[in-house]
């Protein structure tokens, strides 16, 4: 649990409740730095809650949580968020701003100079494979896949140390999905950042994941490379979950 060791985020005994219902935990988990961790599980298993905890959008009721070596407190959370890019479900792009303005929102607020912002936006467009001609469109004038690319660019604008993605491919049709999936993996490889990606889709987990964390009812059921889960499922649920996807068309 050293500040900049191989661990990007660590959770010890973290619990989150909504009223009487436990949404997550108690959970112990280390997110390794520089690799892609996939949080996998059926809907309602707490994987999005876990992501929101790491980003500080919600605070744990119990346990300790350190992200990038720092405890997540109300005082540290804003600075921390600028070191952690976050792509929420469906992108969350601001409809009143163009793609370029969405990406440049934070750099502009941090008073970067215009040439630096322009260079960064161009660099990110190339990385995310978004045609520059689309940068001046508003989100409503972009396709679902293009919107996700812009959301990725926005999350990466400040070159964060860590990237969180919540079902980034959720609402896309299969063709677009396959293409974006390839491009995303390319980006993760190029950047070599810590990535935490939430999905309910085993095929996506296989595509992205160095490390898979399978969750059920707010608890970690098994963690490790997907091959390890498949060869040695820790219990009946793991086997059932994997089988269900094997039977899927």
């Amino acid at each position, binding site marked *: 649990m050293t500040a900049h060791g191989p661990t990007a985020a660590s959770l010890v005994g973290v619990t989150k409740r909504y009223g009487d219902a436990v949404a997550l935990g108690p959970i112990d988990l280390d997110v390794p730095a520089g690799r892609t961790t996939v949080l996998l599980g059926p809907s309602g298993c707490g994987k999005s809650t876990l992501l929101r905890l790491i980003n500080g959008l919600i605070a744990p009721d119990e346990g300790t949580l350190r992200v990038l070596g720092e405890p997540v407190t109300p005082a540290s959370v804003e600075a921390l968020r600028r070191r952690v890019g976050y792509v929420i479900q469906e992108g969350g792009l601001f*409809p*009143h701003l163009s793609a370029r303005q969405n990406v440049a929102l934070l750099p502009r607020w941090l008073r970067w100079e215009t040439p630096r912002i322009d260079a960064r936006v161009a660099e990110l467009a190339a990385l995310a494979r978004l045609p520059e001609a689309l940068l001046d469109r508003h989100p409503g004038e972009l396709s679902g896949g293009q919107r996700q690319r812009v959301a990725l660019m926005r999350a990466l604008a400040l070159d964060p140390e860590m990237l969180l993605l919540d079902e980034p491919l959720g609402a896309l049709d299969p063709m677009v999905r396959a293409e974006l999936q390839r491009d995303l993996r390319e980006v993760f490889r190029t950047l070599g950042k810590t990535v935490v990606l939430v999905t309910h889709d085993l095929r996506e987990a296989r595509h992205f994941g160095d490390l898979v964390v399978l969750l059920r009812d707010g608890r970690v059921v098994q963690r490790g490379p997907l091959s390890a889960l498949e060869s040695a499922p820790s219990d009946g649920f793991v086997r059932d979950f994997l089988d269900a996807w094997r039977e899927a068309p």
Partner: protein
Amino acid sequence: MRWAALLALCALGCAPKAVRVGSKNFTEGVILGEVAARACAARGAVTEHRRQLGGTAVLWRALRSGEIDAYPEYTGTLAAELLRGVDARDLRGMRRALAREGVAMTAPLGFNNTYAIGVPEALASARGLRTLSDLQREPGLALGLSHEFLDRADGWAGLRARYGLPQRDVRGMDHDLAYRALSSGAIQATDLYTTDAEIAWHRLRVLSDDREYFPEYSAVLLYRADLPRRSPGCARALESLGGSLDAATMIDLNDQVKRRRRTESSVAAAWLEAHRGLRTAVASEGRAERVWQRTREHLAMVLSSLLAAVLCAVPLGVAAAKRPRLGALVLGAAGVLQTVPSLALLVLLIPLLGIGAAPAVAALFLYSLLPIVQNTVAGLRGIPTALRESAEALGLPPFARLRLVELPLALPSILAGVKTAAVINVGTATLGAMVGAGGYGQPILRGIRLDSTATIMEGALPAAALALLTQALFACIERVAVPRSLRGGR
């Protein structure tokens, strides 16, 4: 900058203060106000007539707070409404009671404007009718009385008892219809006010109240007790009007304005010149000039109140959206304000803000709060959670989130609220004329008073046009300020 402020202060404080005469919102009141103001002006005083300021309460408050220096009043109103427990015929008692309020009173102007019974002149002279007592001899006379006069305890019932009147054929009818019924012979007598222009117009004889049944409503001028010190010439001019106007003269002056459509100013000026030898100038302005003046007053009221409301209501709306309990309180308070009738609110504001544009602007400001606060709250609360969280997840502090994301997203809703407030203000500002703020309400009030549709239209048409223009203007603002992705449909 400092010089400009000093100059402005000087303009307010150093200039000789004008004598301000007020008048109530009815023709006789405006004529008397104009006579008083011109009599003062003829003695060299800088005079201003703030005409048709609404009802008794407005004028009385304005006089005591020093917003105006003088206005015409009736002794009956003083006795019944303003100085409880003083008899309307006891002028000395009335002067003493007024002095305690810092107000002085001229001698009665010479006529008594009270209820009376009128009979066509031809019939009256044929039957020898001069007094109400004479009616005892005429049991067959058909009476058409206004509903109000029939209903009031001090109206028909009391009158019949006092004089022992035998008439059986007594009908309630509208006042205007009563005059028509008189000329067609369907009725032979009706109730009226002793100085109604209609008396001349329909050739009626007013029967004198020989048993002093009707209350005394002698016209007087009230003025502030400090006026003789500030403008001795003006105070003398007002006092000299005592006893100068009899009922026949007043009926004639009312008739000149009401039937012959002359302005109060020219009627008052002509009378002063003919009977008092005082010459005063009658400014004549064209209709275009008049409408432009009203437009400026109206716009000033609407714009200043709206600007202040936006500056106040948007932050209030933001606070209300962020803190639900505070929100309930703010919206509740703004909602209650909205239910206060506009005229009542205007009158309530007079002791605080005087008369003129200030109370009107304040009232419009208060009425504008609710739609803007409400729409700000709705706009902010309507932002999808995903967008609000996106802004938070980016690491923007709360104020930056508000400025860069939340307010722009709520802008269409906020603008709609401002538009609602603006359109309502354009309409409500017409009531400002009741407290001397001018605007399009001025011709509307005057038109209602004189029963002149043309005059009403001089205010109503531009007010409607301004409301439409406001709508159009906001459509333009929306097109410029709201990105196309947030406009309609999305």
